[in-house]
């Protein structure tokens, strides 16, 4: 059958438009990479040759290294807390499977929809009353609250594919609740827990609005330094940080895709064997 020229035209238009939009997404971030190797002292594309001076500035200056460490401490601690709380909550809701449990799960999503500035203002006020302003504990607590919903979502979606009978079997064989969770449920929902961990970590590592409100000098995270750097004089060091973050994001994304593919492969295998 001869192809309708109108169909061919429409298809070309569609692909052209879609890739233009995607280029709009990716190209600005890609340009940061060559800029980070510039030999100039201000932000621009390399002129004479490539230079690592802005990477050196990052690794040599105390303010950048200590900010990175602060961010890592807060992100790792709040990821662990959010994973623990979120996973237990998701398991409880999933096993209860009642209307009330469903309401709890919806309730746990609140921090996703509340505008960041509103929660920052609210936390600022309450954190003063508690005396935990500008402390690691205060920021870790705040980031835990913001990250928990994402863990609940990813773990819940993993649990939706988990066979309830495995849990019952463990109980019938005499397993206690903690043993059942530790040895039966958690290993089976690992992909959900891992992508929850990725969400929690990136959210905390990237979080700026709450950090601007509830920390000042004592805790100074990387996003806060970047924020200052952009507003003051557009420090070229940020281009080198940006390039490193792009590399890390690529690595995390590939890990996440890999985990998802493995989960899918596992599910297909189970269907092949069990004929669900």
């Amino acid at each position, binding site marked *: 059958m001869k192809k309708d020229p109108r169909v061919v035209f429409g298809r070309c238009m569609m692909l052209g438009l879609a890739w233009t939009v995607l280029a709009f997404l990716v190209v600005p971030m890609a*340009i*940061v990479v060559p800029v980070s190797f510039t030999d100039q002292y201000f932000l621009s594309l390399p002129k004479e040759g490539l230079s690592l001076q802005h990477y050196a500035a990052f690794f040599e200056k105390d303010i950048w290294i200590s900010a990175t460490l602060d961010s890592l401490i807060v992100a790792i601690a709040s990821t662990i807390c959010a994973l623990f709380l979120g996973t237990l909550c998701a398991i409880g809701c999933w096993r209860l499977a009642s209307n009330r449990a469903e309401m709890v799960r919806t309730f746990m*999503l609140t921090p996703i929809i509340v*505008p960041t500035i*509103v929660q920052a203002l609210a936390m600022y006020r*309450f954190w003063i009353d508690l005396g935990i302003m500008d402390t690691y504990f205060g920021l870790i607590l705040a980031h835990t609250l913001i990250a928990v919903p994402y863990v609940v979502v990813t773990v819940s979606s993993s649990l939706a594919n988990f066979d309830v009978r495995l849990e019952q079997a463990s109980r019938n064989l005499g397993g206690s609740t903690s043993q059942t969770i530790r040895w039966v449920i958690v290993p089976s929902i690992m992909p959900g827990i891992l992508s929850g961990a990725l969400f929690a970590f990136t959210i905390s590592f990237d979080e700026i*609005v709450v950090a601007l409100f509830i920390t000042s000098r004592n805790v100074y995270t990387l996003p806060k330094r970047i924020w200052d750097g952009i507003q003051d004089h557009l420090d070229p060091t940020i281009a080198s940080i940006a390039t490193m973050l792009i590399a890390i*994001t690529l690595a995390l994304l590939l890990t996440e895709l890999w985990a998802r593919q493995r989960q899918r492969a596992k599910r297909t295998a189970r269907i092949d064997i069990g004929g669900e």
Partner: protein
Amino acid sequence: MHASLSRVYWLLIAPAVLLMLVFYIYPLVQVLWISVTDPVPGFGNYMELIDRPLIHRIWITTLRICVITTSITVIAGYAVAYAMAQVGERQRTWMMFCLLLTFWLSVLIRAFAWVMLLRTQGIVNTGLQEMGLIDEPLRLVRNEFGVIVGMVHFMLPLAVLPIYSNMTGIEARLVSAARGLGASPFEAFFNIYLPLSKPGIIAATILVFVFSLGFFITPALLGGGKVVMISEYIQVSFEETLRWGQATMLASTLLFSVLLSLALVARFVDLKKVFGAR
């Protein structure tokens, strides 16, 4: 289920819920409370929404930017989602990869990239000048143009994902049937495909609108103090003037606007699906 067993499961839920109630919900309620009690009890703070022209202007700026951002994002996002639904597996993976890379990359870094490109001595302006296309640098940031570019860039992945996930459920043979019955490709698209993809469009529209309303980082960095949206004004009125009554009133109004938008959309689509799709 056995009653004692069910109690055990409630115990698993309790820590997360209690933490959320004490450290998240209570502070939010406190904000609402302050907005009607500080400096004097009553709705005095809310009268400013009606009385003060400055606040009118900021709300109008916010709404205008949100509407423009949402329209551009949803149309561009629809184009990408539609292409993704039509192309082969390989090309789709690449498209998804571009979207997810943008989605996961730090929002600060993305705003930084745009400031770097668009500022007066930025890469776009110097490039255009070297090519001799312009004499004077164009004003591309510290105005609404820059803010909208940055916001569309942030929101696009959020728009594509729900539209695309809705499109995967559309029966492709319906379009073929329309074509077989004599419809032109354009008629088939506008009369069959577009109406079927409406739930995805509605979900994306509200999602983008809601996130735009309370957006802080990108407008603050790309607006450079010249374009002030409601979120930034809340920060300013809190940090510079320390007027808690006004700041909490604006925050409460913002929160209610978001909740209202979500209540509206809940009538059309399953919200949990929209948020779970991330």
